[in-house]
């Protein structure tokens, strides 16, 4: 016997995300969801970004990690409030879900923040599906990953608002086809800005930080 259901699998998460979005709006805080494969450089980029945003933009961070607190410790050194979410406690999930963000946000004083940055779990699959109530999404891709990565994870590159091509300091040592990588991203999301940078040396970070400041200004004015 067949029983009609017709429901979105992510119904519950979408509802929670809408609630988060409403909370962030009422607190006048802009939320950025940072995603990437493991090790592409989210934390390093964030450390540098936070340093460049201060003191103009008041930041707070939620960092998701499968089991360690290393990233939270690194980010806390920037002097911004950091909440660490160990997704292990939620069944070893490979993404941050909206209810996890809601809970983590309670540990932050959002009245004191203009920008909340969420470092998602290193994974290009599930985080693309799980809305957390963010205003913008950024994906970090490093030049040590394959040029065809965007094609393998097209939804991630389609739903993001900015792409960061990181570790450009390594280019002289690699035979990475940067033009091909850029073209692959552009095919999926032609209008998306792509920022080439080295989070290690700091080269190329300024345009990204300006873009982010602009986004924040637009929402919270």
């Amino acid at each position: 016997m067949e029983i009609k259901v017709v429901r979105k699998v992510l119904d519950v998460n979408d509802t929670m995300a809408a609630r988060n979005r409403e909370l962030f709006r009422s607190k006048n805080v802009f939320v950025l969801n940072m995603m990437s494969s493991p090790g592409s450089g989210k934390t390093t980029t964030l450390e540098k970004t936070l340093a460049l945003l201060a003191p103009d933009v008041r930041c707070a961070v939620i960092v998701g990690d499968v089991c360690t607190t290393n990233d939270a410790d690194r980010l806390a050194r920037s002097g911004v409030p950091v909440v660490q979410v160990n997704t292990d406690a939620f069944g070893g999930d490979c993404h941050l879900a909206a209810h996890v963000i809601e809970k983590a946000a309670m540990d932050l004083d959002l009245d004191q923040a203009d920008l909340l940055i969420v470092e998602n779990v290193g994974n290009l699959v599930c985080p693309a599906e799980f809305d957390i109530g963010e205003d913008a999404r950024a994906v970090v891709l490093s030049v040590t990953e394959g040029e065809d990565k965007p094609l393998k994870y097209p939804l991630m590159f389609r739903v993001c608002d900015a792409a960061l091509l990181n570790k450009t300091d390594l280019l002289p040592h690699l035979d990475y086809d940067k033009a091909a990588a850029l073209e692959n991203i552009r095919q999926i999301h032609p209008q998306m800005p792509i920022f080439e940078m080295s989070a290690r040396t700091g080269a190329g970070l300024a345009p990204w930080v300006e873009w982010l400041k602009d986004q924040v200004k637009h929402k919270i004015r």
Partner: protein
Amino acid sequence: MGLALQIVEIAKASIPAQLADARVQRVNLKVGKMAAVVPESLRFCFEVITRSTALEGAELFIEEVPVVARCRACDHEWTLNGPVFRCPACDGVNVEMISGRELDIVSIEVEKD
């Protein structure tokens, strides 16, 4: 894992009260080709979390939905074969996805024993 859990929650909640002890044989899903779903891992997670439940052994049937896009500049609509969001009619890039992101439970099939 998150997706499989949601599927199981919805499927369980969809079993009518008068069939409370029924076994679910099949769960029918509609999944867009752009959805970030790896069918093998979804099936694997589903199998693990449904062990010793009313859904144990149920088949996850996935109907794939093609990616259809529409150009906002010239209204052209087409089915994508790969992730290339550029209008084949006018070369425009202001393109919206009409379908291809679906991740829906359509129905469940139950058998009373």
